[in-house]
């Protein structure tokens, strides 16, 4: 039952596990086809490729067996007027009165809505989708139009993120029942050639399940619900929505099997397909399910974020056991006290089987308490920002020829009240009705141009040397400085990130954020001690800065270190190599052209940090015993300079 130190798996075992993953993916199709609008949908973790295409094709066939289902795609850069609907200008002008049009969300009603590259979807788009999913309706209050449309769809989101770095918005993950992982599923397994064409069209044995509506005629007894909740608790899945979806999935499974009550098998299936992918902790079978250890409870405060932050099973190390043929390493406890706990124990076993060894290891590490709980690090703060950029201001009267875009709606609005007057006037001027007048008469004074307010956002990346004896002292200062900066930042909408390097590698303790809540949580967990992997710290800081630059932010990097590296990039100890690597990393940073501040924290300022600062073309500050306010003041001053001379 030990979860640490996973054994290296043989290729055979790997293949087995990929096979079971594919089998589960096919079960998801069956369930979705039987109850397309009751389960939210699914998140597919896979890069675009033949295997994913095959899965989608199978889902399509399964749904088509129900009747014709339309498929819609949500483009990434959809604006609100297309997403939610609004004034249909063409029709409005033609008809001479306001005509509204449906947005994409309303058009997709009764069909499938696909969101590609869901990890790039902004939180505001996600919130609009989520609101519509909750109500089954889409409300539009835009452009003088109000309308309510039905909007019930099967949501398929494609998570194409590379690693734990990015993930789809938690608001969406929380509302789809399934998280399907297709990583490492081979094309052969999926029955497609690597060129994409299906090898055997008839291989779709899994589809066309009888469709029998949703759960309405299935009995949901308290025992099953309790089992679901206990399992969720054991796995550290806190979101009530996931638990509700797990119940719904069990019902659907029972419906497919034409039973009128949920049995263990259905619950086990729900545990594997719904709960296991969201696990934030390793379930312990023998533990009393209703009383989790206190150390584990602490992991669970923001459970819905954990779903996105814990990377899905990726390495293909997964035990292949379906619930019935259980018992690879989990020997079920034969003495069960009550029926209840038997049920949830079986569910937990099933869920365990679906957890990959990688995930188990990560969870075990987190439980060890040495790194900040990954579960607490969503990526929300970041995404909100791009939405904030270029906030549109109210359109203003003006001439589009002098720059700016015509704000058509404002122009039409301005012109609208005068139409009857203008028509009369023109009719007078044009002799007899020989001239066909346009419906809408727009005059120069009607023109409105749109305006936008841009604010360049800034990100400050702190790279803190958490190594060795002075670490605790430095860390306290760094924490203080970060919090002070953050306290201002969230007023100004600036962001802060924190990298700490110690031992063998650098960790991103705090991805770019302006959330004080999250920052504090990460900061309290900042550990100290060990070697100084300076090169790796610099690399990590640059990686964050690059990502931020792609999002259009201006970045300052602040190092708090004594500059004495002793761990090389590859994690081996040794000062000479470590120093060379650090210099190399510093040069790379310079190539990026980031504003850099090197705060030398050694008791006697020395050349190593200064040289490094020169290599980075950064500013060097010897602040041996700097207190938090001094550091934050220095950073502010540096940033102010940068804003003046970008």
């Amino acid at each position, binding site marked *: 039952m030990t979860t640490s130190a996973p054994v290296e798996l043989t290729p055979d075992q790997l293949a087995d596990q990929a096979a079971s993953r594919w089998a589960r993916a096919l079960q998801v199709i069956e369930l979705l086809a039987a109850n397309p609008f009751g389960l939210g949908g699914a998140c597919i973790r896979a890069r675009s490729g033949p295997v994913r295409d095959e899965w989608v094709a199978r889902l399509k066939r399964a749904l088509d067996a129900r009747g014709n289902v339309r498929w819609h795609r949500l483009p990434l850069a959809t604006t609100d007027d297309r997403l939610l609907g609004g004034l249909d200008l063409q029709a409005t002008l033609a008809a001479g009165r306001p005509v509204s049009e449906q947005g994409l969300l309303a058009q997709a009603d009764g069909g499938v809505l696909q969101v590609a590259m869901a990890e790039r979807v902004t939180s505001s788009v996600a919130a609009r989708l989520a609101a519509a999913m909750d109500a089954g309706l889409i409300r539009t209050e*835009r*452009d003088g139009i109000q309308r309510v449309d039905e909007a019930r769809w099967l949501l398929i989101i494609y998570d194409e993120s590379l690693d734990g770095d990015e993930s789809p918005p938690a608001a969406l993950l929380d509302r789809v029942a399934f998280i399907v992982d297709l990583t490492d599923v081979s094309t052969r397994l999926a029955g497609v050639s690597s060129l994409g064409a299906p090898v055997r069209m008839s291989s779709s044995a899994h589809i066309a399940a009888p469709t029998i509506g949703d759960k309405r005629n299935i009995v949901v007894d308290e025992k099953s619900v*309790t089992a679901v909740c206990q399992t969720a*608790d054991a796995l550290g899945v806190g979101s009530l*929505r996931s638990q509700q979806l797990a119940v719904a999935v069990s019902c659907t499974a029972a419906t497919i099997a034409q039973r009128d009550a949920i049995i263990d098998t259905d619950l086990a299936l729900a545990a594997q397909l719904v709960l296991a992918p969201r696990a934030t902790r390793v379930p312990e079978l023998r533990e009393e399910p209703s009383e989790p250890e206190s150390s584990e409870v602490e992991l669970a405060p923001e459970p819905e*974020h954990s779903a996105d932050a814990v990377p899905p099973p990726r390495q293909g190390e997964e035990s292949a056991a379906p619930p019935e043929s259980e018992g690879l390493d989990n020997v079920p406890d034969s003495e069960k006290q009550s029926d209840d706990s038997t049920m949830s124990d079986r569910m937990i076993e099933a869920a365990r089987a679906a957890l990959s060894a990688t995930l188990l290891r990560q969870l075990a590490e987190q439980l060890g308490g040495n790194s900040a709980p990954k579960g607490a690090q969503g990526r929300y703060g970041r995404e*909100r920002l791009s939405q904030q950029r270029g906030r549109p201001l109210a359109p203003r009267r003006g001439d589009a020829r002098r720059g700016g875009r015509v704000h058509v709606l404002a122009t039409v609005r301005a012109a609208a*009240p005068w139409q009857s007057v203008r028509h009369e006037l023109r009719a007078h001027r044009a002799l007899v009705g020989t001239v066909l007048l346009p419906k809408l008469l727009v005059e120069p004074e009607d023109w409105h141009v749109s305006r936008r307010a841009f604010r360049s956002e800034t990100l400050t990346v702190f790279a803190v040397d958490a190594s060795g004896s002075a670490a605790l002292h430095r860390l306290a200062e760094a924490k203080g400085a970060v919090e002070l900066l953050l*306290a201002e930042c969230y007023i100004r909408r600036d962001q802060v990130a924190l990298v700490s390097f110690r031992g063998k590698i650098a960790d991103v303790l705090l991805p770019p954020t*302006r959330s004080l809540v999250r920052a504090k949580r990460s900061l309290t967990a900042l550990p100290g001690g060990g070697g100084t992997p300076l090169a790796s710290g610099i690399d990590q800081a640059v990686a964050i800065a690059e990502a931020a630059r792609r999002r259009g932010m201006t970045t300052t990097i602040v190092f708090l270190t004594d500059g004495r590296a002793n761990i090389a990039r590859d994690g081996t100890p040794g000062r000479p190599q470590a120093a060379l690597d650090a210099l190399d990393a510093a040069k790379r940073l310079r190539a990026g052209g980031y504003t850099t501040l090197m705060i030398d924290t050694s008791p006697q300022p020395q050349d190593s940090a200064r040289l490094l600062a020169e290599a980075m073309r950064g500013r060097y500050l010897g602040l041996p015993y700097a207190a938090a306010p001094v550091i934050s003041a220095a950073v502010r001053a540096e940033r102010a300079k940068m804003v003046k001379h970008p």
Partner: protein
Amino acid sequence: MSNAPFPFAAIVGQDEMKLALLIAAVDPSVGGVLVLGDRGTGKSTAVRALAALLPKMRVTTGCRYGCDPASSSSSCNECAVLKSSGATIKSHLTPVPVVDLPLGATEDRVIGALDLEAALTSGVKSFEPGLLAKSHRGFLYIDEVNLLEDHLVDLLIDVAASGENVVEREGLSVRHPARFVLVGSGNPEEGELRPQLLDRFGLSVDVTTPKTVPERVAVIQRRDTYERQPAEFAATWKRAEDKLRKQLSAARDRVGMLAMTDAVLERAAQICIALGTDGLRGELTLMRAGRSLAALEGAAKVTDVHLRRVATMALRHRLRRDPLDDAGSSTRVERVLNEVFGDEASAHLAVAA
């Protein structure tokens, strides 16, 4: 949406949120309610449920802004003219409005704008009331308030505070009463609200996912029963709902008559000074919320115990940010309350609880 909403009384746990909503419903002058917390904790459910719980209100027939025929102070221009003319005013009962502000709503629909339809078809310049007018005397609910554009939030809070919507755009100059309780919800992990904005909400509550298994089971089971048979479910809870509704009506009638003793006022001031909250808004809210609570519980007068029970929700969002203090704001309020009240009041509280 056509279904009966989830009964307020059937919401499992989340007592602080329910209490805050009830307090705001008793006395709208308490100010809005801000609900921050985890996803899927029934924030929207509670607000919608509240709508169904509220007793119906009397409105002037034909008034576009839903004016109260009895009140003379807050009526729109047309009603004011009508009232001063001494004509008999027809009125009818309608449910209290709970208006959703959907994400992506544009400013013109929020504050109201030129009626495009009328303008385009008949060339008439007329005002089309927006969501603010619709929510007059009711509730305006904003889900994910931290995703709403800043200028819209500013505008909403301004109107909520002044009780009047002033529209000056597109050649229109309109003002109409818009007294509503602003209810915002959001997730603090997605970015925080500006402190200026936090302060404008009367009460603020934190919600978390229920931690115990039996509670979760109850939530899921009730939800499940409700989804299967909304009508039957509502019927089961009807008595509890009716009781709550009566309590609410009674409290609304009584709240104006409850006296605040000097001792209680002094206590409120003490608490606010000890916490270092800026401005008088904190004290006002604290007193009004305490009074609402007393009215809700049918108490004869407002006491320290009432103040104490609402102090956390009335004040926790008004504290000066102290990034170096790790304790959450609720803890800080608790700390000060213990100091101000001493042990004697805590004992009272224990009895009351």
